[in-house]
């Protein structure tokens, strides 16, 4: 083996080591501008790689208009859109500020964000609280109902969860994921097990720190009624796990995957903060009654950070129920998705194992070289949003990361290492 290949092997070993050494703990909920001091009025963080207003999809624009009204930067939605088109707002990816957000992924100064600390390395990652299903901002919803809920999250639920977490010293998350995998969760499309575990973990502290029983009841009902409550925590966990893996010279490991409804972007450890982008692909799956693929929005959200750490589509073997959404897939074929992802990952995670595969660990450490060599693209379990803002989720299925991102990354790595 050449020196270069040895160097890459060593760098990748270090990358996977750091992933496996992570110790992510959910420690707090705080306003976004306390978590991210750079946030200021007019600055809107969104999901996916950088994108400007002209290229944004419908739901993303709807969410931006909504959040601008929410924060008081526009009088109403029409005013917000006009301002946005005129360049009044400052758009940035969540990823550039240690944050992630599902679907449209709006993060602005007053939003409450959950804080996950990676105790091994000391870094933190942030994600807003999951709003629930139906008409929500992450699907581009922006009416009074949506904004009212955001206000309650900001003023009620967020602080309540924050107080509980501080009181109990936080919730270590690796074990929650491990248990969830044994309960049929894959932490992207299916979080019902982990959401239940989280509720159990924090409800005593919520009770101890609650201002009154009405508020406590509302909080418990909200969390308890949201099967996807854990998604946002899993995303922050993923970001916290992957951020220390960035910038390892010579490493070909993928450190982020993300979409903004227009472009799919990846980042690779050995090429630092460079985004490699390609147009997002359309999801393939099953639609709720009354909807078809003609209604589908292109793929969107930072939630692919979950696949980046070996969960979601990578852990499909643990979640046969999800496989039923996957077009022609049957429950018994769920395992094949995980086997396919093992072809493009460097190793497996011994702490996150899948009983149905004889406790094989989830595929860990996506290697750009393996993706390009095999032509096997990371498979993502995703919800499908309606292309009109605010309608909500219309289906669920799989989508593939575009191979073009990985091919570009390979070329960039080769140039950086002097062999192009």
């Amino acid at each position, binding site marked *: *083996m050449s020196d270069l290949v040895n160097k890459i092997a060593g760098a990748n070993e270090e990358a996977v080591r750091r992933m496996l050494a992570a110790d992510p703990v959910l420690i707090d909920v705080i306003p976004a501008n306390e978590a991210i001091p750079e946030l200021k009025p007019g600055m809107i963080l969104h999901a996916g790689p950088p994108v400007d207003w002209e290229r944004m999809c419908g739901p993303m624009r709807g969410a931006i208009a909504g959040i601008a009204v929410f924060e008081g930067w526009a009088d109403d939605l029409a005013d917000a859109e006009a301002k946005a088109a005129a360049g009044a707002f400052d758009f940035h990816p969540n990823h550039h500020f240690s944050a992630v957000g599902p679907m449209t992924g709006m993060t602005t100064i007053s939003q409450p964000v959950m804080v996950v600390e990676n105790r091994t390395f000391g870094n933190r990652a942030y994600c807003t609280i999951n709003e629930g299903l139906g008409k929500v901002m992450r699907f581009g919803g922006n009416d009074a109902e949506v904004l009212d809920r955001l206000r309650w999250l900001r003023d009620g639920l967020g602080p309540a969860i924050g107080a509980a977490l501080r009181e109990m010293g936080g919730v270590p998350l690796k074990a929650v994921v491990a248990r969830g995998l044994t309960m049929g969760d894959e932490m992207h499309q299916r979080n019902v097990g982990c959401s239940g575990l989280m509720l159990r973990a924090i409800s005593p502290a919520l009770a101890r720190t609650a201002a009154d029983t009405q508020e406590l009841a509302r909080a418990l009902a909200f969390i308890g009624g949201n099967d996807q409550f854990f998604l946002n925590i899993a995303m922050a966990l993923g970001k916290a796990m992957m951020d220390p893996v960035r910038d390892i010279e010579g490493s070909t490991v993928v450190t982020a995957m993300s979409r903004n409804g227009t472009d799919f972007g990846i980042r690779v450890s050995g090429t630092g903060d460079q985004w490699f982008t390609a147009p997002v692909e359309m999801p393939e799956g099953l639609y709720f009654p009354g909807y078809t693929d003609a209604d589908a929005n292109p793929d969107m959200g930072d939630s692919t950070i979950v696949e980046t750490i070996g969960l979601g589509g990578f852990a499909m073997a643990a979640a046969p129920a999800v496989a039923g959404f996957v077009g022609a897939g049957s429950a*018994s*074929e769920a*395992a*094949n998705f995980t*086997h*396919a992802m*093992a*072809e493009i990952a460097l190793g497996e995670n011994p702490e996150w194992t899948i009983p149905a595969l004889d406790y094989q660990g989830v595929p860990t450490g996506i290697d750009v070289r*393996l993706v390009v*060599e*095999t*032509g*096997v693209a990371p498979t993502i379990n995703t919800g499908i949003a309606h292309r009109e803002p605010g309608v909500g989720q219309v289906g669920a299925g799989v989508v593939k990361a575009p191979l073009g991102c990985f091919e570009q990354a390979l070329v960039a790595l080769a140039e950086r290492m002097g062999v192009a």
Partner: protein
Amino acid sequence: MSMILNQVRRGYFLDSVALMRISRTVAGLDGVEEAALMMGSPSNLGIMCDADLLDEVGRAAAGGDLILAVRAADQAAGEAALAKASDLLERRPSAAGTGNTWRSKTLRSAVKHLPGANLALISVPGDFAAAEARKALRAGLHAMIFSDNVSIKDELDLKQEARAAGLLVMGPDCGTAIIGGVPLAFANVVPRGDIGIIGASGTGIQEISCLIAQAGGGVSHAIGVGGRDLKAEIGGITTLMAIDALACDPATRHVVLISKPPAAEVARRVLERIGASPKSYTVCFIGAEELDLPANARAASTLKAAALDAMQINALLGTVHTVTVPDARAGSIQGLFCGGTLAAEAQVIFRAAGLAVASNAPIPGIEPLAGSTALHRLIDLGEDEYTAGRPHPMIEPAVRDDVLAETLRDPDVAVVLLDVVIGLGADEDPAGHVAREVAGRGAGGPIVIASVTGTDGDPQGRLAQIEKLRAAGIHVAASNADAAELAVACIGAGA
């Protein structure tokens, strides 16, 4: 007015044998003049272009794409043909979809699923074979490279790396090996015994191992070294490693080395290494007469002589086919061989008999085909000019059918000489193909002489194959060498 229709499937791979079978079915449809399903490599594009099968769609295909190409009498026939081709592709059990069995996509992941894997058998298109072999070596596996069209530079790099790691590279263009009693690729089911074989030729190994079996002996290991291992550029790396390996092998008592005559310096080095081995050797450099051999080695210039020498017998015993010489004829002998070394052995015998013969793969003293006026011809149908873009005639006997049919009709041909190679990897009924072509020619025509390289342990069954040939009026000799001698006798020469 015929028309060309193409369809391209991006990144869709299927092996050449499967593609050939589908192509033949589609080409036989009503209204179809020609059809081919091929991967879009530059050489395949050239072949399809020459066959007038490509339009702009097909020409734009890349190396990893599958091209479905049809030339038909009209649009309707063309579309029907493409639809049929698609249907045949769809009907193949898809690799990743059959039940719950996952098929690894790379050698790397395959090795994870078979701990203790120690040998990679590589038969991907030549352009990709060296890379796969390198992956195998890096994973600590020996490599048997069946693929040909690997560059000599890649071969040298691979063999040097393998030698440093203590691993064997058998090949490229290694069609036959028997390791630990297991026949690999194109090999025959022969009993285990104490004779080792090191061969630069697949069919050479096959013929000798089968004759040893016929004589009641058995084979410990047959190591294929690839057709170019004994060229000066490679210097016999794998051959030397094989000699060393068998020197220490308790299961081996005697070794047969088969090759075309190597470059002088390589021959010297090889013979010197043989001299240092505790085992006895039969050295068969096909057609070579004078050799400076060490004390533990004897020479044999034909495969048959090598087998007899290894078994220390004078004749093949127990053969059931005593062949009487048919009435002598005037005219030419046309040999159509699937096995290159079998063609070479025939040339040795024709040369010794003083016959004027030419070949597309001539041994020293035999004229090359181009520009030759020699009466007799011995053709190796496995040579590059016949196999570019097509399976080898041993995999797909149909490749020989057309040439055979034409030769049988030629009034100037007195004798047709054929090899019929059976065993693993070969067609399920090579004799059947030949018998059908010969039986279908009607009365008169050339004498047809054949031999069957194989054993009764082979799936096709040697005796059954011989019976099919004889039923079609073909004279079946005990060995390839015997068949060549019989052909010579039919012309009345060599007596």
